[in-house]
C-alpha cells in the first residue's frame, strides 16, 4: 500500500524515521533535478541535496501542508542552491579559479561538431546563466513547474518570472544553436 505524504509525515513525527526515508526516496529525483540543474553535477550538489532533506526533517513539525511536499522541498533546494552559488562567487573572488560545475568552456574533446551529448550541452549552457535567470529556467523548463508555481516557489511576481524566463531561454538557445546546427 502506497502511503500518502501526509501519512508518512505523521508517522515520522511519531518517531518512525523509516517513514521519512520513504519520503527521501520518493522525492530524490525532484530535488536532484533542481539542485544539479542549478549547481551542475558536482560534490557540492550532493551536499546541498542532503541538506535540503535535513532541513525538511528539522522543520517537519512546522510543516502545515499549505503547499505540496514537492513544492516545499523544491523551495528549500532552490534557496540552498542559490546560497551555494553566492558562496562560489565569494570563493572565486578570493581564489580565482573556476569551481567545479562552472567551467568556462566545454573541454576540447567535446567541442567537436559531432558532439552529441545533448544533456551535458544543455547543462553546460544553463550554468552560463546568472543565478536569478538560472533559477527560473531550472524550475520552469527542467523541473516542469508552471509559470505560476515557479513564481510561488521563488516568491516573485509572475511578470518577473516571464521576463527572466524569456531572457534565459534566449541566452541558452544562443549558446546551443551552433552545436545543434552542426549536428
Amino acid at each position, binding site marked *: 500500500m502506497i502511503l500518502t505524504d501526509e501519512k508518512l509525515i505523521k508517522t515520522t513525527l511519531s518517531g518512525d*524515521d523509516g517513514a*521519512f*526515508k520513504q519520503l*527521501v*526516496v520518493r522525492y*530524490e*529525483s525532484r530535488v*536532484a*533535478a533542481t539542485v*544539479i*540543474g542549478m549547481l551542475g*553535477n558536482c560534490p557540492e*550538489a*550532493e551536499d546541498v*541535496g*542532503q541538506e535540503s*532533506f*535535513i532541513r525538511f*526533517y528539522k522543520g517537519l513539525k512546522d510543516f502545515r501542508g499549505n503547499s505540496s511536499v514537492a513544492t516545499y522541498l523544491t523551495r528549500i533546494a532552490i534557496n540552498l542552491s542559490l546560497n551555494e552559488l553566492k558562496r562560489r562567487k565569494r570563493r572565486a573572488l578570493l581564489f580565482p579559479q573556476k569551481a567545479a560545475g562552472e567551467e568556462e568552456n566545454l573541454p576540447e574533446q567535446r567541442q567537436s561538431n559531432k558532439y552529441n551529448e*545533448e*544533456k551535458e550541452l*544543455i*547543462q553546460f549552457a544553463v550554468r552560463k546563466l546568472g543565478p536569478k535567470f538560472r533559477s527560473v529556467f531550472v524550475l*520552469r*523548463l*527542467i*523541473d*516542469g513547474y508552471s*509559470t505560476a508555481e515557479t513564481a510561488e516557489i521563488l516568491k516573485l511576481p509572475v511578470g518577473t518570472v*516571464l521576463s527572466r*524566463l*524569456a531572457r534565459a*531561454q534566449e541566452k*541558452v*538557445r544562443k549558446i*546551443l544553436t551552433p552545436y545543434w546546427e552542426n549536428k
Partner: protein
Amino acid sequence: MNKKALKLLQRSFDENLSEVERQSLEQALQTSSELRAEKARISTWRKSVLKSAANSFQPFFAAKVMQRIASLKEVQKLESIFFESLFAAFRPAFLTAAILFLTLLSYNVGKSDNFSIAGAFAEPEVTLEQVIDPTISFFLE
C-alpha cells in the same frame, strides 16, 4: 517571419494568451510554414531541456541522508544529557546559595529594624542633612 507572431508564439509556451492573441497566433500558424517550423523547433528544444533533468544523486543517497539524521539526533541527545547533568550538578549549590542569600537578607533586616531594600542590603541610612546640601543655606540667606 512576422515578428509579432513570433513573439506571440514564444509567449504562448509560458503564458496564457488572451482570446484575441490566441486567435491571431492560430491564424499566423495556418498561413506561415516558417512559423510552424519554429513552433516545432521550440517544442523539440523544450522537450530536450526537460529530458536533460538529472533524476538522482550518487548511489545510496537516501541511506546517507538517514545516517546524517541519526548523527544529528545523537548529538542532540548528548547535548540534552550534558545540560541535564550540568543542572543536576549545580542545583544543590544553587539552592544552598539562594538559602544563604535569603538568610543574610533576613538577618540584615532584623538587625537594622529597617524593613526596606537598603536595610536588607545593610546600606547605611541616609540622614536629612546628607540629602539637603548645606551650601544651599548660603543662597537662601
